[in-house]
């Protein structure tokens, strides 16, 4: 579970009359339990790739198989359901719903399941325990620091126990110390909880925490030698 298999992936955006190819015949395999850092200049298509893997965008052509499911052909409601069970998302910004407490934010994905209130509570508390925020359950996002907010977002991403976590510049908006904490947490989720992780980042230090580094440039993956990070 959590493995990603991509073949000849193309994504073309239409801007007015023009066709803008963002991903152009991209192929990559990500093994179960891998922690991949995805780097590349701005506009190179990193977010687009992540969105395609996560099933919140649809490929123009090509094959996207995640955890054994070909999601390129899935649509609407079915895709939404699949996503809620198989993928955890962590974004750079605007992750949390401001009118809900940390607890309620983490609980959100579980509201779509048949779990009882008591079971939901257990799952939420377990997730918040993993990110070390059980003492902040009744805090609203504005009462949390940036790093804490991001940890709540991670707790929410893992609460329904998906095999694959997708993080789009999760430390992009944080100070160095908080960023370190988040990266340590992601590493732990990878090692201890066996989550497969794909993380987009601009920060080479962040990338070092991953076990594999992939460069994307102009929609094409650059052959990357086994990185120093992987050796470490």
């Amino acid at each position, binding site marked *: 579970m959590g493995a990603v298999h991509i073949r000849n992936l193309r994504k073309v955006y239409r801007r007015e009359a023009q066709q803008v190819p963002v991903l152009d015949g991209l192929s990559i395999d990500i093994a179960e339990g891998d922690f991949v850092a995805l780097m590349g200049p701005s506009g190179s298509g990193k*977010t687009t790739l992540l*969105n395609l893997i*996560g099933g*919140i*965008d649809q490929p123009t052509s090509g094959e996207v198989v995640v955890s054994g499911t070909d999601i390129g052909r899935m649509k*609407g*409601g079915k895709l*939404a*359901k699949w*996503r*809620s*069970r198989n993928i955890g*998302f962590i*974004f*750079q*910004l*605007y*992750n949390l*719903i*401001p*009118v*809900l407490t940390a607890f*309620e934010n983490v609980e*959100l*994905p579980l*509201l*779509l399941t048949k779990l009882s*209130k008591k079971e939901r509570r257990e799952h939420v508390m377990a997730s918040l325990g993993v990110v070390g925020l059980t003492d902040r359950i009744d805090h609203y996002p504005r009462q949390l620091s940036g790093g804490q907010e991001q940890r709540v977002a991670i707790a*929410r991403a893992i609460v329904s126990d998906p095999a694959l976590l997708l993080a789009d510049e999760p430390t992009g908006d944080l100070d160095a110390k908080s960023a370190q904490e988040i990266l340590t947490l992601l590493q732990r989720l990878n090692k201890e909880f066996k989550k497969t992780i794909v993380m987009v980042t601009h920060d080479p230090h962040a990338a070092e925490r991953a076990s594999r580094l992939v460069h994307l440039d102009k929609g094409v993956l650059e052959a990357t030698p086994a990185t120093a990070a992987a050796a470490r």
Partner: protein
Amino acid sequence: MKFLRFIWRNATRNKRRAILTVISISVAIVTICILQTIVVAFSSGARASDASRLVVRNKVSLMLPLPLAYQQRIESMAGVKAVTWWDWFGGNYQDKKNFFAKIAVEAESYFRMYPEFEIPKDQMSAFLADRRGCVIGQKLSEKFGFKLGDTVPIIGDIYPAPSGDTWEFVVKAIYTTTKIGVDENRMFLHWKYLDERMTELSRGGLIGVYTIQIDDPSKAAAVAKAVDAEFENSPEQTLTETEESFQMDFVKMWGNIAFLVRVIGAAVVFALLLVAANTMAMAARERTAEIAILKTLGFRGALLGSLVLAESLMLTIVGWAIGAGLAWVVCLGVSGMISRFLPTFALTLAPIALSLVIAVVIGAVSGVFPALHAARTRIVDAMRKVA
């Protein structure tokens, strides 16, 4: 409903906007309820009227009398089943503020023709046996504490009293009613007692208005025409109309109030719609990024749309509940003050139900576009806009 709290938090996320919206809805609902109540009160007299009864009055003015001599001539006309007559007595009980209608009636024929005034048999005989007797409504008896056998002094104005300036009537009967729109605040006295006094003053043999019972309500217009034709060349010409339009003559004094009220009501509803729609549109637009996040988590468009719609309904229904409560309090407070003009003024279920329908429709209409917007938001587009 596990989303109820989430909906509530969203609805109240901008406190000032939520409060202002709810207040404007409440105010509008109060207005609608009260206006509607006024309309109902105005038309209740007409509703209490009977299609088989015609009213014959002096053509020149309602204030001018008709000769008693017309009675036999009307009675003998085709299509007429019975005739009675009555007169507005005027007068005051102690003070002008204690207003209630006092009507001098030809007792036997009047109560036969108006069975909606329900009087126990023994009380009726007691009333008929005493020319100084009177019949009062249940509510009137409660209001002033009049009991059977009490003497009620009425200061005469239109009709001077036999001695001094006060008429005295003895309560012989109390009527109740089960017919909607019939007023239980009236006093009936004997026209013949009044006429005795007027004869002393050489003004006898005059009555205020005749009421005719007809055989066939569908012939009302023809009978009315025939009656007026009968007295065409008499010194006092008549104007005959159905009881309903006769009642409406009173209402016309107020202009076409019902129409005005509806126009105002419609304007209020429209203004309200704008307020609610604006609130919801702003709320949904601000939340585009959050909607994208929720979709990413697996929330379907239909669910998100329903949540937005529910939020809109929550605001209007809370506003309605407050408004309806206020209207109830206001109507209770006001009904005492205006019972003089509108004796049947009371908030009924109908305006409350109507205003609930209005609140729900406004909530739905103002929520539907934001709901569709939420349902249709595409995650990638929404994320790009905010990033």
